[in-house]
């Protein structure tokens, strides 16, 4: 039965060569995603309100303006996609649930409530208006997202129980979401602004926003990569992970903080963009088995490319009008997943598969 492996003498070299083919594949994917990101960035610089309008045709002053608009916007879209995809991969690993997305701890509802409260409060009194202007919509969305996660943690009484966390997240999401809806109902003036936020847009992303998101991405990536081994251990179940000496509570707190920071930063700048966080890790997994270290990094790159592509399409299709970018991400990501599922019916339906 096992005769064929009798030839090679066991050695560390053969073992690590098995691992090295995997890392060669991952390195190739990494490079490919970087190249794709660069290509899309270049494309993003060429698409504007007139549709296809590459910078070679523009005059000097217009080129400067486009540097202030198209470049930060494209880069911001890539960074936001990377943040959301990283958060999604962390969420899926942390909760061992392939349907987890960055918003499952109530981040999206919290951000909506923050924005709705800001818009609502702006008209109430001059003092409130001044405060609202200082905080700004991005600040309100960020505070709302983080606040919602904190509320979820309090409701779940800590990070020890995954199921309680998920349920608390659902509750917080529903309650805060209806709070935002109530505010919108009470003051229908804010309806259009709320809708623009809910569907997501990179329209006003400037260089300061890009800086914020870049810093957030760096922080979150480092932290998540640091915790990636524990995420791998968690795939064997909590008991086994604990028996392997992993400090689950600490890692969970760190990962939830990473999740909130990444989601909050992306949502604050670009609104609620659906589906990127959910689909990017699945795309990476569909290209072959990966440990979490590689999965987190590749997910971020995939998410960035996905959102940037969607943003370009949103700007191009009905220029000079803009489609909400969340619709395009759903179309792009969803149709790719559908095609994958169609192509690998056996893989998804197998006894061992749980996707």
């Amino acid at each position, binding site marked *: *039965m*096992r005769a064929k492996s009798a030839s090679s003498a*066991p050695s*560390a070299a053969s073992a690590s060569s098995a691992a090295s083919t995997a890392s060669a594949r991952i390195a190739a994917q990494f490079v490919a995603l970087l190249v794709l990101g660069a290509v899309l960035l270049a494309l993003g610089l060429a698409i504007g309100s007139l549709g296809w309008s590459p910078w070679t045709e523009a005059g000097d002053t217009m080129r400067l303006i486009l540097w202030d608009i198209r470049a930060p916007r494209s880069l911001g879209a890539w960074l936001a996609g990377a943040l959301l995809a990283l958060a999604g991969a962390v969420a899926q690993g942390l909760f061992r649930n392939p349907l987890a997305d960055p918003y499952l701890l109530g981040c999206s509802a919290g951000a909506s409530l923050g924005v709705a409260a800001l818009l609502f409060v702006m008209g109430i009194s001059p003092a409130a208006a001044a405060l609202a202007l200082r905080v700004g919509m991005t600040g309100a969305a960020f505070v709302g997202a983080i606040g919602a996660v904190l509320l979820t943690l309090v409701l779940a009484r800590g990070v020890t129980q995954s199921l309680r966390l998920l349920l608390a997240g659902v509750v917080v999401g529903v309650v805060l979401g209806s709070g935002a809806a109530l505010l919108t109902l009470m003051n229908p003036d804010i309806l259009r602004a709320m809708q623009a936020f809910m569907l997501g847009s990179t329209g006003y992303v400037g260089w300061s926003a890009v800086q914020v998101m870049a810093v957030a991405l760096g922080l979150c990536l480092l932290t998540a990569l640091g915790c990636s081994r524990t995420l*791998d251990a968690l795939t*064997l179940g909590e008991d086994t992970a*604990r028996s392997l*000496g992993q400090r689950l509570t600490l890692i969970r707190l760190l990962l939830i903080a990473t999740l909130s920071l990444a989601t909050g930063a992306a949502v604050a700048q670009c609104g609620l963009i659906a589906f990127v966080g959910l689909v990017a890790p699945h795309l990476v997994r569909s290209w072959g088995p990966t440990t979490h270290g590689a*999965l987190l990094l590749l997910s971020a790159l995939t998410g960035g490319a996905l959102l940037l592509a969607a943003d370009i399409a949103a700007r191009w299709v009905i220029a000079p009008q803009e489609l909400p970018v969340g619709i395009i991400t759903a179309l792009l990501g969803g149709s790719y997943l559908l095609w994958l599922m169609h192509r690998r019916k056996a893989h998804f339906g197998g006894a*061992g598969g749980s996707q």
Partner: protein
Amino acid sequence: MSAARFDDGGRPGAGGVPASSGASFATGSAGTSETAADVASAALAMDAGVNGGAAAATDAVTLGHVPTLRIELRALSLGHRQVLHPLSLAPAPRAWTAIVGPNGAGKSTLLRAIAGLLPFDGTLTLDGKPWPTWPAKARARQVAWLGQNEAASEDLTAYDIAMLGRLPHQPWLAPASAADHAAVEHAMRQTQSWDWRDRALGSLSGGERQRVLLARALAVHSGVLLMDEPLAHLDPPHQSDWARIVRGRVAAGGAVVSVLHELNVALQADTLVVMDGGRIVHQGPPHDPATHDALQRVFHHRLLILQVQGRWVALNA
């Protein structure tokens, strides 16, 4: 007959992989080598057909210090139900302890309590020091755990899963060292899962997957090995292989505790712990008539315990 089965890469004896990997994690005590005494003790405990001298050599793994694990439990409740009543257990090193009993006796719960995975009223000590005072990684190096029906990600390769067993030995974020690779390969070859190390776990059958998970537990190279229903999905040849591996561990000085449903395999252990209703009814070697009485009691005298070719077997009456 079984000697041929585990002959993949007939290793040239003690000088091969085990020695090099032994150098990296032997702490203090000299690495045990496969001496004739080991082979002899292995042969005493088991049927001659199951194991051969050469095979014992391939399974030898150098363990460091083997700690003494001791539990003194007053009560353990899950929810509002008291599952375990006062008991105490100290699995001996250089011995294989099998916990048996009817369904619902609390065997898995007891094993999880011993592994420090369940809170209970009582004390759990490792080498005399209470369990919580140990640093997590040091603990993990001493005690390895293999759970029952473990969920596992479908996306990792078998090799990556087995490599997870080396986590207690790896510094934070350090890449896998040569010793880690060697240990994983050795463990996977022991469980005969080496051939599909590059396949994703989701594409393996139940038995293949179980062998990968077993390799993961073996790769920890811990002094104490706790396994809950490790024979799930394994067909009889692989069940024998598993018993052989356990014998090898015991020969190297380790302590193995397993919860087993398969009485026939359990009756090959060094000590049987018979449980019923959350209590330890009897502890003793399998050849002891008192052990047989205890077994009959807890299984309502529906067993036929007899000796076949020098081995104790339990048949359904």
